[in-house]
């Protein structure tokens, strides 16, 4: 198996899909000739042409809206938001048109929206957000957030094959930092959680860029046996895997890079309170960004985003409880 970066894995998935299915098209700003702001589609136009690797007008609502139209007549559009932050401009189309379509009239909308998300590189308030919770709160939209190169590829294939709108949260911080062996060709990873490392004293529940943070923070935690559960999919949320980890470990730290209020981790915490209460041996602890825009200057940004130290400290505290 080739070793690919997270970003190369995403590229490979898109290339494999374009080769395998003539209905797959890529739509986005600067993805064609330029190859995308992060070079995910670098060189694609040479193989697939400008129709299938489409440089669109600078219009996020237009990208989502036209993708919906194309999808309901049989295409499989994969939209790229240049930064996930810009999905706010396409929010209405995604939430009101795509998300409600099947419920209202039984019409499937197979679109994938790629959302390069997250901070950690001085992107500032408009290039660092983690907007996944908005879509978790919107019925009819699936949300996935891989943390490894293999899952990035397998989940992207699964997202494109899925008959529903799927928000694919790809974390910019992982693009070139995460590497791994990735199977060639088209394969799917399920929309379910994955035990990244088994343990029994405490479980850290995370997704996306917080998975490697959780693994590093708990690698050697005074000999404690710490499980790390990688959610991978936020909608659907793998309740069974979460409750299974809670049952075994009884102590839970939930990590979001997103700001805390109503974030994905809040939903996980609520689920545990509701269905895992009898397994708990301590308060459910959350580590997340405070409710502020992500600041630009490095010391400010570092003060906001959860890192290895904060996660480790939270685990230590809870283990001692």
């Amino acid at each position, binding site marked *: 198996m080739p070793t690919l970066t997270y970003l190369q894995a995403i590229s490979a998935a898109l290339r494999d899909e374009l080769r395998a299915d003539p209905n797959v098209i890529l739509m986005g700003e600067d993805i064609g000739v330029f190859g995308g702001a992060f070079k995910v589609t670098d060189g694609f136009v040479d193989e697939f042409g400008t129709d299938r690797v489409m440089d669109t007008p600078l*219009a996020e*609502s237009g990208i989502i809206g*036209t993708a919906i*139209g194309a999808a309901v*007549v049989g295409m499989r559009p994969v939209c790229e938001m240049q930064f996930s932050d810009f999905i706010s401009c396409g929010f*209405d189309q995604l939430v*009101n*048109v795509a998300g409600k379509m099947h419920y209202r009239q039984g*019409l499937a909308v197979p679109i994938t929206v790629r959302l390069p998300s997250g901070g950690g590189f001085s992107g500032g308030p408009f290039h660092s957000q983690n907007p996944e919770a908005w879509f978790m709160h919107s019925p009819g939209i699936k949300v996935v957030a891989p943390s490894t190169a293999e899952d990035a590829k397998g989940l992207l294939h699964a997202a494109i094959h899925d008959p529903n709108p799927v928000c694919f949260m790809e974390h910019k911080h992982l693009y070139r930092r995460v590497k791994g062996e990735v199977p060639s060709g088209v394969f799917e990873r399920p929309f379910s959680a994955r035990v990244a490392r088994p343990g029994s004293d405490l479980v850290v529940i995370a997704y996306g860029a917080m998975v490697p943070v959780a693994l590093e923070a708990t690698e050697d935690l005074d000999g404690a046996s710490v499980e790390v559960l990688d959610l991978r999919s936020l909608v659907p949320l793998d309740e069974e895997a979460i409750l299974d980890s809670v049952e075994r470990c009884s102590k839970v730290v939930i990590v979001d890079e997103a700001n805390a209020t109503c974030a994905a981790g809040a939903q996980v915490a609520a689920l545990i309170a509701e269905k895992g209460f009898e397994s708990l041996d301590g308060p459910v602890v959350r580590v997340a960004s405070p409710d502020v825009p992500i600041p630009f200057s490095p010391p400010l940004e570092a003060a906001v985003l959860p890192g290895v130290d904060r996660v480790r400290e939270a685990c230590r505290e809870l283990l001692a409880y």
Partner: protein
Amino acid sequence: MATHTAEPAAGGAAAVEHLTLEDRIWLLRAMLLMRGLEERAMTLYRQGKVPGSFYDGYGQEAVSAGAAFAMGPQDRLCILHRDLAAHLIRGVTPARILSQYMGRAAGITAGRDGNVHFGDRRLGCVGMVSMLPDMMLVATGMAMAFKLRGERRCALTWFGDGSTSRGDFHEAMNWAGVQKLPVVFVLENNQYAYSTPVDKQYAVDPVERAAAYGFVGVTVDGNDVEAMFEAARAARERALSGDGPTLIEAVTMRMHGHAAHDDMKYVPKEQVEEWRKRDPIERQEARLRDAGVDIDALRAEIKASIDAAAEEALAGPMPDPGTATDGVFCTGEAEPLGDGQAPWSGFGAA
């Protein structure tokens, strides 16, 4: 693409070149059925049988009937809430429409959505959402797919004068112009967006904007069903020939309030009276009566069909509350839109 100014469409009896007598009767039938069904639905609303609010297209029947009649089976439509005739032309039965209004299981959305917020996907229609004009982008996307695949089809959508103020109007017009897509935009200018008159909506007649986006804009008498048909037919021709989108501004008047609760006090009485003289149904009836058509028999036939539809719809069950959470996600294969009915004689076999 040269700049086009609004062209007055042919009106009166001059538009019949592409219409047989049967076609012209079909157009009247669609309008009569629309008006009759909406009147019946309003009665049901007052009887407490229709939940929520109720919106109708009284006085604007020609806009949807004329435009939809020009569309082929493989064309795709995003239909607005005052365009019931378009659904009827595509083949949705009156009983299903009344069931839809009443939130019954047999309605097109089986009670998930109300009013004319529906589209029968098997008949090539996508139901609208309330965020207007979101469907302009959806129609643009469908047209984009047709063009990418090299298919000779078009997409058509309707939207109102209020919609011209929103960003999605611009994004769709621009996108369609840039990519020269086979899409027909029908601006249903009925003078009011809820209570807001057009002079508070735009500074320039929106049909002029088509030129700014690089395609043709035409203004049509929206109360002349045959003129509406002709404008849409020509727009479709343009689309299928690869000449890009068309903006048709159908000038009409909303003769009822925004919804059942709206007494329309903000509309001058003279304006309503003036438009009443231009009722699209009376105009088409006059033409056909001149051509020897028995209008009374047609009306009787339609009334009977509405009575039967109401009886059927009222007898139908309400949706099972146990199904309220079903169908949020598609769990099987994604099925694209199907083909609709296309009764115009120009499509031959129809």
